[in-house]
């Protein structure tokens, strides 16, 4: 049976197939159908045949090891995290290593596998916004008695929490704490003078 080619290139405007002659030419070429100007680069992965799906082989003798999840199937690999035996159906080849689905899921949830992170909350930006936005907004300044303590709480609570995947400093947290502290001091001074004038 001939091996299937994984895919071919299509024009991103009209979805018509593109001739291989237009690929890797180093020049812009026109789509035959919609005449869009295209620059196409193809890589050897395009010619890589699609891997057939494995369902796992059935155990033939008692001397063979069975899969942890499917005991009737022959073990083909061990999970590199938990060491469980896995059949061809259960093994997940990821980043050149083999894992079981349970470990991948647990690693993603607990943040063990950095490369599985798909979303992060930027607490330093949240803290900074809580100190700056109310000041910029005209009526927001009255809410700083709430937002400033909140900014300090977030900065301290999430000081060690993972921030952006791209390394960044703690500067935002520090600025947020300083600004929030100034706002709190300003409120305290205001309350002090109000109380003093009231009692006088």
């Amino acid at each position: 049976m001939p091996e299937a080619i994984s895919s071919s290139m299509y024009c991103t405007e009209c979805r018509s197939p593109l001739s291989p002659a237009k690929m890797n030419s180093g020049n812009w070429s026109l789509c035959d159908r919609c005449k869009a100007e295209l620059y196409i680069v193809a890589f050897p992965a395009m010619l890589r045949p699609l891997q057939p799906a494995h369902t796992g082989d059935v155990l033939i003798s008692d001397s063979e090891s069975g899969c942890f999840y499917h005991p009737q199937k022959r073990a083909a690999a061990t999970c590199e995290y938990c060491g469980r035996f896995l059949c061809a159906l259960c093994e997940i080849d990821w980043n050149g290593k083999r894992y079981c689905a349970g470990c991948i899921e647990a690693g993603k949830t607990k943040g063990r596998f950095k490369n599985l992170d798909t979303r992060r909350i930027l607490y330093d930006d949240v803290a900074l916004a809580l100190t700056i936005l109310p000041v910029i907004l005209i009526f927001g300044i009255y809410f700083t008695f709430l937002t400033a303590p909140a900014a300090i709480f977030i900065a301290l609570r999430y000081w060690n929490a993972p921030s952006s995947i791209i390394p960044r400093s703690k500067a935002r947290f520090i600025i947020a704490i300083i600004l929030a502290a100034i706002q709190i001091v300003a409120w305290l001074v205001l309350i002090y003078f109000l109380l003093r004038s009231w009692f006088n």
Partner: protein
Amino acid sequence: MACADLLPVKELVQLTTLTETEQQNYSKLAGYRLRMIRMSRNTLWLGKDHLLMIRNHGFTEEYKRFYYQDIQGLILRKTSSGTVWMILWGFIALVCLVVLISQLKDWPRILLVLWGILTAIAVYAFLENVIRGGTCVCHLRTAAHIQELSSLSRIRAAMKAVAAIIARIEHQQGFLSPEQLTTVPAAPLLSAQPQHVGSAQTAAEYYDGTLHIFLFAAFISSGLLVSLQVILRFSAYEAISAILNVVLWVFMVLALIRQRQSSLSNSIKRLVWYGFGAALFSAISSSAYGLLYLFSPGMNPWRVLRAMKGYETSDSLPWLVLSLVVAAIYLLLGTLGLLRVLRYRAELKRPPA
């Protein structure tokens, strides 16, 4: 016996964890794109073994990773949006400059300063467009899906970034020679119906674009109405304009809802968003001008009534200029949109080759 076999399971687990969480060094690729409508900023980073796309929504970041080993191809397509924006900003900048120069002696200082800031923004946007050069759309292809790399939207920056990506991919995969390329079998034809490229998870819904035809027709009608008012000055203008505005906004909201995950081409979807921006600009600028006018010295109830009927405001130069700018944008967007939707509908009806 491998080294790993000698380690106890606990240590092996720790070793694996350490390898997975070790700090990746990323270098930023040229170019970023602000998506004002979605309030997000996209950036592209080169990692050791993968390309990282970050979509920053302000307080959260979303990551997409494309391993060099899996990338099958990159496709850049030139677009005309840069030219359209250049013409638009150039026109607005020119009009703003002409008004500013002509009103230097007549306008109060505060109005001159505000108008000067507006002019400076328009001139900056025009120059930035000219300097950054032509626009393009870049798509990355893997065996599983096609992803638009929206941060690569300018040809010059995109070509630099693509060269860096190619170097990394070829380091991992090798080079595809012209001889190997000839062995690529002819690709099967897809349906003539254009499909949304960008996300593999969401299947594009069939949609024939009827709502969009009404929307772009409303844009053209509104543009024509404003132009007619400038030339003819008829009394029913305000009433017709108000009705048309309501119709325009209703169709706008409906079209924006309907086009999500529909089979419409990205260029039509973008035109609707541009139209949304233009309508918003029109509403805000006319309200701001109206307020300035109402609070100007010498106003009385009779003049306010006349102004509301559209007689008096039509006489002032800034109002005329604003009307003409809005009319030009509406006509341009409406005509472009209508042509594209009609072409899209013709594509739908065309049988697959």
